[in-house]
């Protein structure tokens, strides 16, 4: 160690800012695309779990248990180094990472959706049916919009988890924040500074998303409270 150097020296972090911010943007993009795919997959699996067909329920149950139980790191090396090699597929790192993140999150989200759907008052479904709507329309136009309101907070948490999980994508070579931080920390021999800064960026992302979710939640709950008042008045 050169004792003439300052104890904390963030100049190399500062000069590497464009690379780090690009890595951060890639991480956020991966998390966002993954969560969108996970919402679609999770919804399908949730509907399967609530299906009248027993075999569909079972498949969905096993799917959920599996992806909720497997550690991301194990899943990602299995997909990227195991499955891809065994199947002879040349899977680029970014799609592989996004698919893995999406599968993992869809397991959690299907449970969220399921409980959200179950939380919708049964009377709503019965009323829809009584009005002669088909099961599909009741689900699409009555149950899901109401369930969506309930699941906003857990959905936000899942997004936060996905953002944090992108750090593991560095293992397979996705050029995201952690991958760049590792390379730069080795280059400048300043691991403390680079990892501290990476941590702060993740913290920033998490705080912004959490704040956004709680604002959205307040807006929607204010709306739903209003609706309730109107219904009460009508009654």
């Amino acid at each position, binding site marked *: 160690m050169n004792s003439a150097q300052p*104890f904390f020296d963030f100049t190399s972090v500062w000069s590497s800012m464009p690379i780090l911010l690009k890595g951060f943007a890639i991480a956020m993009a991966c998390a966002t695309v993954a969560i969108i795919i996970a919402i679609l997959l999770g919804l399908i699996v949730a509907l399967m779990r609530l299906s009248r067909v027993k075999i569909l329920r079972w498949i969905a149950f096993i799917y959920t248990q599996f992806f909720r139980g497997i*550690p991301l790191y*194990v899943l990602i*090396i299995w997909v990227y180094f195991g499955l891809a090699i065994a*199947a*002879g597929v040349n899977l680029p790192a970014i799609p592989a990472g996004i698919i893995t993140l999406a599968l993992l999150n869809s397991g959690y989200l299907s449970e969220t959706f399921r409980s959200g759907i179950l939380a919708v008052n049964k009377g709503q479904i019965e009323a829809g049916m009584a009005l002669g709507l088909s099961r599909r329309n009741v689900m699409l136009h009555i149950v899901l919009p109401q369930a969506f309101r309930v699941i906003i907070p857990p959905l936000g948490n899942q997004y936060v988890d996905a953002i944090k999980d*992108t750090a593991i994508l560095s293992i397979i070579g996705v050029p995201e924040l952690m991958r760049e931080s590792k390379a730069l*920390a080795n280059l400048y021999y300043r691991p403390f500074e680079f990892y501290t800064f990476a941590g702060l960026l*993740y913290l920033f992302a998490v*705080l912004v998303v959490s704040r956004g979710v709680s604002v959205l939640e307040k807006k929607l709950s204010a709306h739903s409270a209003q609706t309730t008042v109107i219904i009460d008045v009508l009654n």
Partner: protein
Amino acid sequence: MNSYKFDWAVIDKYLPELLKGLWITLEVSLVGMAIALIFGLLLAMGRLSPLRLTRSVANGITQVFRSIPLFVMLFWVYYGLSLKFHVLFTEFQAGALALGITGGAYMAEVFRGGLLAVDPGQREAAMAMGISKSTTFFHVIFPQALRVVVPPSVNVYVGLLKGATIVSVIGVSDMIYVAQYVSLQTFTPFELYSVAGIVFVALTVSISGFAWMLERRLGRGRSE
């Protein structure tokens, strides 16, 4: 198709090494959990402190450590802290410490919820009987909070167990490390990682199931 040759016999051959690796994963996660319990309880007590400064410091620490990915924490501890402060952590210690810090932030939330769930009348009753503050905490509040705290703690542990799989990246010779090492020699990554995956799913699903059972049991006792 390519020329990948499946060879499941490799699992049988390296089973002792894989199990030894699994044991190390369990050890790291358990030591990490022990640190998380102590750290989390301290943070929770800080967050419920009557002193405003203590409260905001504890709240801040919880928020920060919950928001930083475990993977970043691991590198921060193992490479960052050790180089900066000249503490030489072994890979195992760094792994357990990173798990303990992250897990502690999650446990702070769990303990806080548990402590708040205890009826305030219990504390008032203890005060009225002239019991000291620390005795009240350890003999009246804490045992009652424990009932609320145990099931979510098991879930935090499941999270740490899953997180513990990444310690192989700093060179802890856990199950994944063994699988990687063996597959380099035998070229059977699919078989080895599949087995590792199945083992972890079996472990986490059964522990989560146990937590679910506990929750129902303890919940039943509570309502009586």
